[in-house]
């Protein structure tokens, strides 16, 4: 009888201990959760503050004033600098690529032969070399145009890198401000190159 009682008492106390322990664990987890909630909230508040700051910093009125002060050489984009996608020559085809490779090879060859020749080796003279390798003049013309365009874009990009840091960073800001601006600049220069 007593044994039974002892066993029961033991069982009850063990289960009570387990329950108590579980309860404690739950409580600590909850405290952790609460802390995480709080930190999420604090983080969200921070994000809100930063969002407000960022949008104040990049408000068009402020950027306009900054550009007027630091980039007086920038001019506004005019409608005739815009091109529709179908007005831009298509991306180079496999055939174009082979002609371009031939052109590059000829330039590289000339470079090896004589350094002075490099200056004289223009896209045109390369085209002449390329013309020999293919019988289709329209393919060559297209390839030359595509290559010239690529060079122009590369020039533009390298030129931008040469600019002082402040200019480049503001340019970056401007680019983010309007993807159209960047697109129009690139398209316009590409257009100029094609002409």
């Amino acid at each position: 009888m007593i044994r039974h009682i002892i066993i029961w008492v033991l069982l009850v106390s063990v289960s009570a201990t387990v329950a108590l322990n579980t309860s404690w664990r739950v409580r600590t987890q909850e405290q952790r959760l609460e802390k995480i909630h709080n930190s999420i909230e604090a983080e969200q508040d921070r994000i809100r503050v930063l969002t407000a700051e960022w949008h104040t910093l990049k408000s068009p009125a402020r950027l306009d004033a900054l550009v007027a002060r630091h980039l007086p050489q920038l001019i506004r984009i005019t409608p005739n600098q815009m091109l529709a996608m179908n007005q831009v020559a298509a991306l180079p085809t496999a055939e174009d690529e082979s002609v371009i490779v031939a052109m590059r090879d000829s330039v590289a060859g000339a470079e090896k032969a004589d350094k002075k020749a490099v200056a004289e080796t223009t896209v045109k003279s390369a085209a002449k070399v390329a013309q020999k390798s293919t019988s289709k003049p329209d393919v060559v013309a297209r390839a030359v145009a595509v290559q010239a365009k690529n060079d122009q874009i590369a020039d533009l990009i390298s030129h931008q890198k040469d600019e002082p840091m402040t200019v480049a960073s503001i340019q970056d800001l401007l680019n983010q401000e309007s993807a159209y601006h960047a697109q129009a600049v690139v398209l316009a220069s590409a257009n100029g190159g094609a002409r």
Partner: protein
Amino acid sequence: MNDKRTTDNDFDVQLPLDIPLSFAPRESRHGASPSAPHALLAGAQSRLVFVGVCFVIAFAVVALRLTDVMIFHHLHDDQVVENIEQQQRFTQPLRATLTDRTGEVLAISLPTKSLYADPKNILDAKAAARGLIKVLPDLNYDDVLQKLSSERRFIWLKRNLTPDEIYKVNALGQPGLEFESENVRIYPAGSSTVHVVGLTDVDGNGLSGMERALNSALEKNEQTKTLSLDLRLQHVVEREVQDAITTFNAIGGTGVVLDTWSGEVLAAVSLPTYLPAQVSEANDEQRFNRFSLGVYELGSVMKVVNTAAALESGKIHLGDFFEASQPITYGRFRINDYHPVHRPLSVEEIFLYSSNIGSAHMAMQMGTKYQREFMCRVGLCQNLETELPELGLPQIPSDWKDLRAMTAAYGHGVAFSPLQYMRAVSTIMNGGYLTPITFMKRDPVDHPLGQQVMSTRTSELVRRVMRANVTSDEGSGKKAEVDGYCVGGKTGTAEKNQGRHYEKDSRISSFVGAFPMTDPRYLVFVMIDEPKPTKQTYGFATGGWVAAPVVGHIIAQMGPLLGIPPMDENAPQVLAKTQLTIRTQKNDSDAH
């Protein structure tokens, strides 16, 4: 258990009532009757078991109750606690954010803290004040010292500190300086959008603009609300209108850009304006919303509506001539032309020369009743319905007498808000659809919204006339032309009605332009209030000199900004939709 005597003794000791018996076993150990102690022992054992069971039950009840409280009830209680936490967390939900159509934030609520002092807990008021003015330089030392030395238990020192300032104040380590959580509404676009976005009061209730229109939705903080405005375009319009106001020393102006298909307002500027944070210092002129609340006699820009009405009536066609050589005299009134031509003019010439006389004749010929009915059809009679609470009511008299009809033909005697006027012109431009105006972003549309209230044919004809007004030598809107965007438009110069008479030198110069005229998608309206003539404009301050260039500048920047592909105006397929042969009396007689 092996020593029963001990047990018995112990047992007996524990039962003080049985004390006399406790000696019995000792005496009986050597020969007393065995039955009596045995019975005694059995009784003691059963009592022991009874008490033991009672204890076990009691402990079991306690254990069960503990289990119940800790495991089952615990969950329940936790839910309650969590609910209370949630309530505390969201008792002051932050107001929802407002953005423009590209996602630029126009209004956002920030949690801030405000600094107050409990002067009782301040140890050294002077040291505290010195520290405070060091980290918050905009505070005044004497002022702070006086506050910190006061007898009160609560006194505000500064509202809405920045996180950086909070950090610095905390770093002072002064007891008695406390923070109270608050929130503040920030408008990153500042003065540019204040008339559309509006303001809230200190408690976060919308007072004006979209803040008021969307108040209940914003308070619930369900999601970010996206307005139809394009902040970049808004800035362009603001800059250009402001330039014109400065150049012509005007008292104010407004500029609105409307999408004629979706009815979305892409930009709406009213100048002069003010910074939302400095609303208490703004004067009435700055607070006044000129594009939707202001109601103006718009003048000749109303000829767009009159011409559309005339052509839609079927009684008047392009090429019909009207006598414009003599002023019209009606009672004591006289209708005159600003640039008299002294010969009969065709309908398109009346538009190009902006002839008041010709327009009045057109109104009479189409029938004054029809004219008013048409104005109602394009939404000029009913109150404009849109989200913005600040809306000026249209002033269009119900007693539509002949004189009223004749003056209304050139935009006098009737007054509308620029926004309501723009909806009428938008209807005429988009093929005849009365599109509902909205300041909220809509899903992209591929067709004008709303009910068709006039024929597409009339719409096409008016487009041609408006295009001719920009391209032809006689046109008054030449300065609005932008290469590649095929602009059409109409100028307006109205003398302001000062009490009972019209003031010759205080005018409203305006221009309404639409593009591309092949199928106008965008409508731009600019109005400059009381421009003064300048040397550069040869002493003119008319719509063609003041407002038309502004519209041109806006369109030239707007096209690349929105990625609108330019077109070749002289391409045959463009000319087929925009060209107009202007008939004059001279070449008409040549033909005969």
